[in-house]
């Protein structure tokens, strides 16, 4: 169930990315898409009743039923790269606003 919900977030993001013309809305769609994909990967590794993959005084043994740690570490990488791409995208948005005075791609295209 959670897989389908997170996939619908991904779907929502791609839909926004294709249909919107405002650059900030496109960046928000990009982030929604990324969050959906991260949730999807994380939920694939989870099953009912499993615990977080960290040994502690409460859960001291490796023989316990832990969550799959590999998707989580891959998502950690993906989140950091998402931060980087968002920063570059916002810098581009500022540059476009400086050059053209607005952020709507259709209006900019009409002026050229």
């Amino acid at each position, binding site marked *: 169930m959670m897989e389908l919900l997170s996939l619908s977030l991904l779907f929502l993001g791609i839909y926004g990315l294709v*249909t919107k013309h405002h650059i900030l809305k496109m960046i928000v769609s990009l982030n929604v898409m990324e969050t959906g994909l991260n949730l999807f990967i994380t939920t694939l590794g989870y099953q009912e009743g499993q615990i977080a993959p960290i*040994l502690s005084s409460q859960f001291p043994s490796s023989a316990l039923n832990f969550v799959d740690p590999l998707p*989580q570490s891959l998502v*950690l990488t993906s989140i*950091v790269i998402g931060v*980087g791409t968002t920063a570059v995208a916002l810098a581009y948005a500022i540059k476009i606003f400086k050059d053209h005075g607005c952020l709507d791609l259709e209006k900019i295209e009409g002026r050229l």
Partner: protein
Amino acid sequence: MKKIFVLGLMLLLVIGIYQLAVYDPLHERTMAFEDRDSQAYLDRSVNGDPGEVVFGKSTNLEDGAANTVAAIVVDYRSFDTLGEVTVLFISSLGVAFLSGGFGKTIRLKHKPGFVLRYGARFVFGIILVFGAYMFLHGHITPGGGFPGGAIIAASALVLSLAGEISGEKMKAFKILEGAAGTLYVLTGIVGLYMAGFFMQNVLPSGIVGHLFSAGIMPLIYLLIGLKVGSELTGILDYFLREEVES
């Protein structure tokens, strides 16, 4: 018309991803507990079976970190993390390139009042210490270098909103960032020289769950935390400058 086309495309994509990820027709494997490969990371049995790993007791494991996700990120797949740090560096470089470079000082539009200035100084230390705690304990508790670095950047954001960070301090952050990145690569080369593999864990792994355990992992998380913190602070600084000039 375009929207309907996109909707149809998305539906195909969703079905395809779901089929591949959940049923996996190529290998006939499921996401079930018995089928997964990463059990070896949880048992620390990639190079050989050490038996049951017990918190606070097991010693001389191939990886002595209590946090398995951190063990994968900075020990088993440390080379991957080096690439990740490089991606963040390149994005900070891109932001610097797009925003027009160095030299201009930050002038805030608002004049910070008494409460903001002294409140920022008060909160700054607490947030900074919490960030340092986060990346120093990354191998035993949730957290690690990347969230710790982000928290440190948040403390720098508080200071710069109060108008306390000057251009000189930003230069110090740049030097810190470069030094941390270079030391990360040097740690990898030390592993190559002493144990024959890049990023090999050459220090003793200690007891699982202790602060000084897991070999070079706390060291690497310290370097990642400093690097990510100073990098994100640099990105924030570029954006603040940008806002003033336009």
